[in-house]
């Protein structure tokens, strides 16, 4: 399995563990603090800081024992293609979040003169980046082949 595939699986596994921990933390905090779980949903999102572990994915790119290059031209092509897919997704999420939040307040809540709360933007950026990274990992696995056999390049 190519290091890029290993890194992609690592990203997906860390995210899956993070989501599970979040779903466990919300009721746990609710129980521990004696507050309704809906009010714990936002504070528990600090769990998504575990996504910072993605930074360790770089260690999969250590030089291999044989004389193969870590990233040859095809690997770079696939990485660039997956990155473009991820960034396109990020842009869609971010723009939808910006416009959607304004539209929600204007047309759903019926506010005439509104401004989107500034505290939404860091959250939208973080959510967009997480979604972009997940999309990139899925794209890498799709381009290489999910099981690492007979890897295709196009």
């Amino acid at each position, binding site marked *: 399995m*190519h290091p890029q595939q290993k890194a992609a699986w690592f990203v997906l596994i860390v995210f899956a563990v993070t989501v599970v921990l979040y779903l466990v933390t919300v009721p746990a905090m609710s129980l521990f603090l004696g507050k309704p779980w809906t009010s714990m949903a936002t504070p528990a999102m600090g769990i998504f800081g575990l996504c910072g572990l993605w930074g360790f994915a770089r260690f999969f790119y250590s030089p291999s024992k*044989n*004389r*193969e*290059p870590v990233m*040859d*031209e*095809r*690997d770079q092509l696939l990485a660039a293609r997956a990155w473009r897919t991820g960034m396109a997704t990020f842009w869609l999420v971010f723009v939808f979040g910006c416009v959607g939040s304004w539209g929600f307040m204007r047309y759903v809540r019926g506010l005439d003169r509104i401004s989107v709360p500034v505290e939404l933007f860091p959250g939208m950026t973080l959510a967009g980046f997480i979604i972009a990274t997940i999309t990139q990992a899925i794209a890498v696995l799709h381009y*290489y082949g999910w099981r690492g056999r*007979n*890897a*295709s*390049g*196009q």
Partner: protein
Amino acid sequence: MPPANDNGLRNHIRRLRFEHGEMTQQELAERTGVTRQTIIALESAKYAPSLPLAFRIARVFHSTVEEVFEIE
């Protein structure tokens, strides 16, 4: 007849490997500076090489690019 990719490009890498002392994919990968996965993708026509890589492959087989790759 080796398979062709979407652009009609096919290659004779697999045949040339066997004709040159039954060279393995790993050995060809090392001599051309790519991974074995790339050689596999090349032979199954799932990847079109860059010009420099095409020339390196041809040089390994002491052939020209046109003898290794052909287009429909």
